[in-house]
C-alpha cells in the first residue's frame, strides 16, 4: 500500500521518458515493471556466454533532441557511437553503399540524382510541416478551442507555404505506396530498396501497400538530416539508453519497483483508482499511466466490461499484429557482405529490390513464414568492443515479415525463422554459416511472451494510414487519454508513433499535466 500522484504500469522506454517529465514537474511517481530491468524493448542482454546485444532495436538516431537535453541523458551516462550509412549487398554482385545528405550524398546513381533530390526535399518538407504536430499533443479538434484551431490552421499554413504545387504534392504522396513514390523518381533497384526498407520495417505493409509512403516521413522526421542518416549506436547496446533514462528518472525522485507485474488496473465504474499486482500487492493513485500497449491495457488489464459496446468494438479493432523477428548471432568472425569493413558499421539492408521485399511479405497474409525474408542487419561490435570477446562479433537481424500467434496460431516457427535467416545471410555473405557460434531467435510470439506486447507488435499499434494522427491508437483517442477517467497511455502505440523518439512519453506527460490544471 502506497500513495503517489501517478503510477506507471510498465517501465518501458516511453514510460521512463514520461515519468521523468512528470517528476520534473513535481509529481510523485511510481513505476511498476514486471521484468528485472526497465526499458522494455530498449535493453541489452547476454544472449550467449560472453556475447551481449540489444534486445530489440539497435539505434538511437531518432531520439528527439529535446528529450536528450531535457532529461540530461548525457549527464546520466548515455554515450552515442556514430556508425555508417546504409549498405545494400546483393548476393554475388558488388554491394552498394548510401550515406550522407544534401550535396554530400553518396551512392546515388547519376541518372537518379535529380529524382533523389526532389524526393529528399519532398520528404524533408513534409517532415518539417508535420514536426510541430509530432512534438506536442495534437490540437483538440473536438472542443474546437481557439488555441487548438490556430495550431491546426498553422499546420495547414505551413503546408500551403510550401507553395503550389509542392503542398499538393505532399498531400498526394501521403496515401501512396512507397513503391509508387519511389518508382516515379528513382530508377535504381538498390536505392529504392535502401529507402523503402526503413519505411516498412516493423509494419504489416509491403512496398505496394497504399499508405506505406507515410513510413518514409515517419522514419525520417523533421529532426533528422537526410534520407540516409548515420546509425547512432549506444555504447553497451541499447541498455545504455535505458540505464541513462532510469538514472535520470531516479535522480528526479521517481520510484521504480521491478520484478512484479501489474495484474489488474482497478476502477470504480470507469474511474481508475489504482492497481493490483501479480503478487497481490495494491497501489492507489488518481492517475495511472500505462506504457503497455493499448489493447493489453484496455482489454486485459483494465476492466473491459466497463467499456460501452462501441468503445469495446473500437478497442478490439486496434490492429497490433506482430511482423518482425529478432535473430541474433554470436560470430567467430566478421561477415564481409562484399564490402570494406568500414561500411559495415551502419544498417545493412538484405533485400536489394522492391519485388524481393514484396514477395517476402506475401506469406504473412496467410499466416506463413517467408522462405526468403528480407532483413535489416546490424553489426554493433564494429564500433563497440564491449559487447563480445576479443576478435568475436555480434550480428542482429530484424527479419521481416514474420507472423505472430494471431497469424500462425500455435505453430512454433522459431526454427523455421532461424533457418530462413541463416540462409539469407549466407546468400549475401558466403561462408557466414561456418562462423556461427550461437544464435538466438525471438519471433513475435517470444516478444509477446517476454515483454507483454500484443502479438509481439514492436510498435504496439501497427503503423498504417488508418492508425496514425487522430486515429492512433483508435479514432478520437489521440490525446493519450482513454475511456477510463484517470487512465492514460504513453507507449509506442500512441501519437506520434515515429520510432524511438521519446515523443509519445513526452507528449503524454504534457497532456497529463495540462489536464491536471483543469
Amino acid at each position, binding site marked *: 500500500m502506497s500513495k503517489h500522484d501517478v503510477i506507471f504500469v510498465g517501465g518501458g522506454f516511453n514510460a521512463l521518458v514520461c515519468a521523468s517529465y512528470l517528476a520534473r514537474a513535481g509529481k510523485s511517481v511510481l513505476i511498476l515493471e514486471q521484468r528485472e530491468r526497465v526499458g522494455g524493448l530498449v535493453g541489452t542482454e547476454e544472449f550467449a556466454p560472453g556475447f551481449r546485444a540489444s534486445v530489440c532495436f539497435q539505434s538511437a538516431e531518432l531520439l528527439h533532441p529535446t528529450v536528450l537535453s531535457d532529461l540530461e541523458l548525457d549527464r546520466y551516462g548515455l554515450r552515442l557511437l556514430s556508425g555508417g550509412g546504409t549498405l545494400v549487398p546483393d548476393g554475388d554482385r558488388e554491394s552498394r553503399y548510401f550515406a550522407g545528405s544534401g550535396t554530400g550524398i553518396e551512392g546515388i546513381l547519376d541518372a537518379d540524382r535529380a529524382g533523389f533530390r526532389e524526393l529528399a526535399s519532398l520528404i524533408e518538407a513534409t517532415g518539417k510541416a508535420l514536426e510541430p504536430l509530432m512534438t506536442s499533443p495534437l490540437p483538440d479538434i473536438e472542443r474546437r478551442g481557439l488555441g487548438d484551431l490556430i495550431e491546426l490552421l498553422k499546420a495547414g499554413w505551413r503546408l500551403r507555404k510550401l507553395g503550389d504545387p509542392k503542398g499538393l504534392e505532399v*498531400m498526394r504522396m501521403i*496515401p501512396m505506396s512507397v513503391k509508387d513514390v519511389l518508382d516515379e523518381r528513382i530508377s535504381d533497384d538498390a536505392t529504392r530498396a535502401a529507402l523503402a526498407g526503413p519505411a516498412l520495417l516493423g509494419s504489416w505493409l509491403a512496398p505496394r501497400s*497504399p499508405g506505406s509512403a507515410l513510413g518514409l516521413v515517419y522514419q525520417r522526421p523533421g529532426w533528422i538530416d537526410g534520407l540516409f542518416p548515420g546509425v547512432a549506436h549506444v555504447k553497451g547496446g541499447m541498455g545504455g539508453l535505458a540505464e541513462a533514462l532510469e538514472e535520470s528518472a531516479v535522480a528526479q525522485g521517481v520510484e521504480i519497483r521491478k520484478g512484479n507485474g501489474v495484474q489488474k488496473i482497478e476502477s470504480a465504474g470507469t474511474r481508475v483508482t489504482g492497481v493490483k499486482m501479480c503478487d497481490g500487492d495494491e497501489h492507489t493513485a488518481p492517475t495511472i499511466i500505462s506504457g503497455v500497449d493499448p489493447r493489453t491495457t484496455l482489454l486485459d488489464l483494465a476492466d473491459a466490461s466497463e467499456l460501452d459496446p462501441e468503445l469495446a*468494438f473500437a478497442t478490439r479493432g486496434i490492429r497490433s499484429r506482430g511482423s518482425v523477428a529478432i535473430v541474433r548471432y554470436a560470430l567467430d568472425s566478421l561477415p564481409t557482405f562484399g564490402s570494406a569493413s568500414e561500411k559495415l558499421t551502419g544498417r545493412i539492408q538484405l533485400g536489394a529490390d522492391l519485388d524481393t521485399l514484396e514477395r517476402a511479405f506475401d506469406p504473412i497474409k496467410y499466416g506463413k513464414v517467408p522462405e526468403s525474408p528480407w532483413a535489416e542487419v546490424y553489426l554493433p561490435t564494429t564500433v563497440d568492443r564491449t559487447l563480445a570477446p576479443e576478435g568475436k562479433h555480434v550480428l542482429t537481424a530484424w527479419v521481416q515479415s514474420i507472423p505472430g500467434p494471431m497469424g500462425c496460431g500455435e505453430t512454433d516457427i522459431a526454427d523455421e525463422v532461424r533457418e530462413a535467416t541463416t540462409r539469407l545471410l549466407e546468400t549475401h555473405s558466403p561462408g557466414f554459416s561456418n562462423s556461427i557460434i550461437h544464435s538466438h531467435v525471438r519471433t513475435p510470439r517470444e516478444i509477446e511472451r517476454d515483454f507483454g506486447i500484443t502479438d509481439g507488435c514492436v510498435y504496439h499499434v501497427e503503423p498504417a*494510414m488508418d492508425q496514425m494522427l487522430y486515429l492512433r491508437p483508435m479514432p478520437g483517442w489521440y490525446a493519450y487519454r482513454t475511456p477510463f477517467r484517470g487512465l492514460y497511455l504513453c507507449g509506442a502505440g500512441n501519437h506520434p508513433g515515429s520510432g524511438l523518439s521519446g515523443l509519445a512519453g513526452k507528449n503524454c506527460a504534457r497532456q497529463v499535466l495540462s489536464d491536471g490544471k483543469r
Partner: protein
Amino acid sequence: MARSYDAIIIGGGHNGLVCAAYLARAGKSVLVLERRDILGGATVTEEIYPGFKYTVCSYVVSLLRPQIISDLNLPKFGLELLPLDGTMTPMPNGDHLMRWHDSADTRLELMRHSAKDAEAYEEFGRLMHHLAMTIRPMLSTIPPDPFSLSPSNIADLARLGGKFAERGEHLYDLAKLMTMSSADLLEQWFETPVLQGTLGASGIIGTFLGPRSPGSAYVMMHHYMGEIDGQFRAWGLPRGGMSGVVNAIADSARYHGAEIRTDAPVSEILIKNGRATGVVLEDGEEIKAPMVASSADPKITFQKLVDQSHLEEDFKASIDRFKIRGSSGKVNLSLDALPEFDCLANIGVVGKDAVPYLSGAISISPDLEYLERAYDDAKYGNFSRHPYMDIVIPSLIDPSMAPAGKHVMSCFVQYAPYDLAKGTWDDQREAFGDAVVNTIAQYAPNFKSTILHRQIMTPLDLERRIGLTNGNIFHGELSLEQLFFLRPVPGYGRFGTPVKDLYLCGSGAHPGGGVMGAPGKLAADIMLEASL
C-alpha cells in the same frame, strides 16, 4: 466547309454526351466527335454474334446521378432501368451465400451461416449507408482548391466542411474508412468467410489493390453510394443493355440541338497562344470552337492529342505519373442454356426455380484469401489463375438480349494486369478465357457444354477497341492520391487544364469512373460559368 460551334466534345462515351447535353440545354451549339462507329465508349451494347447482345464493358448501372436522369429527362428518351435482385456466391464446398434484395430474406440466409453476422450485417449496412451519405455530396460538387484563399473558394470549403460537421462523430469512421483495407474492416465486423469475401470483392473492383491493401475499404463504400429510385445499393440493367443509357443521353442531347458524329477520330487539339481553338480530325478536317472538352482519358488527351510544346515540364511530369494501370478483363458469352450450379442442385433448386438465384449478380469470391491470392498473381504480372468474378446474365432480366431460350452472360474478371511478366496478351488471351471458364465450371459442371461463343476482352483489347489507356476501366486508378482535388493531377482538380479553354469531362476527372455522368455534368457547369 467548316462550320463553327460554341464547344466541341471529344469522345461520345456517356460522359461526353452528358456534357454535350447540358451545354446544349443551356443554348450552346455543341459538336460531339466519337472515334468509333458506335456511341457509348465503355457503356455499350454490341451484337457481336447474331442475336446475342453483349454488354461489352460495363454491365450494371448504380451510380448514375439521379439529378442527371431528371435534368436530361432520360426516361422520356427511353431509359428504363430493370432491377437486378441479389447476389449469389457459390462456395467450393457446395454451399452458397445468397444476399437478396429483401433484407428479411437476407437475414434468414445469413442466420444459416452465422447468427452473429446476421445481426452485425444490418448494423454494418446502416454505418455504410450513413458514411456513403456523408461522401455523396462530393460526387456532385466541384472540388474546392484546398490552398486558394479566394472568397468563393473559402465559402465552398466552408460549405463542404459544414456538410461533414453535420455528420458529427462519424467523421472518425469516415477517416478510418478512407484509409483502411476492406479485409481489416470486414474481419472486425464478420466471421463468415464467404460473407467477408463477397463484401470485400466490391473493394477491389477496377483497382490494382487486394482486399488487404489499405484504401480498399473506400472503394467498397463507393458501391454503397449507388441508388436507383432512392434505393441504396440497388443495381439495374438498362433495357437493351448499357447502350440503353447512352442512347437516351444522346437523344436528349440531340433534342437540345447537339450534333453528334461517329467515325470522327480527333487527331489533334488546336492550340493558339495557349488557348484551345478547335480540333483536327484524322482525315485532316479542321473544326473550330472557342471551347474544347475531352472525355478521352488524361493520358490520351495530353500525350496524344496535345502538341507537347504547349505544356510545361511539371505538368507533363504529373501526367506521366498519373496512375492508370489496367487490372480487369471481361469475358462475354453466348449460352445455349443456363448454367446449373451445384450449390443450387444441392438444395433441390433446379430448372425454373433456379432463375431467381441467377437473376442478380453471381460472385466468385469464396473468401478474402481467394481474392488476395488472385491479387498476388497480378502483382508480379500474371493473370489470376483463380480469378475473382462478378457475373450477370442480362438475358434473364431483359430477354431481348438473346434469342429465345438462349442466354448471354457477362463476366467481369480480376485480375488481368495490362503489363504481363511473360508473353503478350495476344498469346495469353485464350488461356485467360480458359481460366475464367474453368473457374465457373468448378461450380456449374454443365457450363462448358453450354457455351456457344465467347468474347474475351483483355486489358489490351479494352485499350484497342474502347480506347482505354492500359485498359484501365476508370480512366485512371481510384486511389486516394488521385481523388477529389487531386484528380487527375494536383492543381487541376476543377476540370480546367493548363491550356485555356480546354477542359476534361471524362472519368479521368473528378469524381472518377463508373457510369455516373458526374464528370460530364460538372465540367459542363464549369464551362458554362467560364463562357458567361
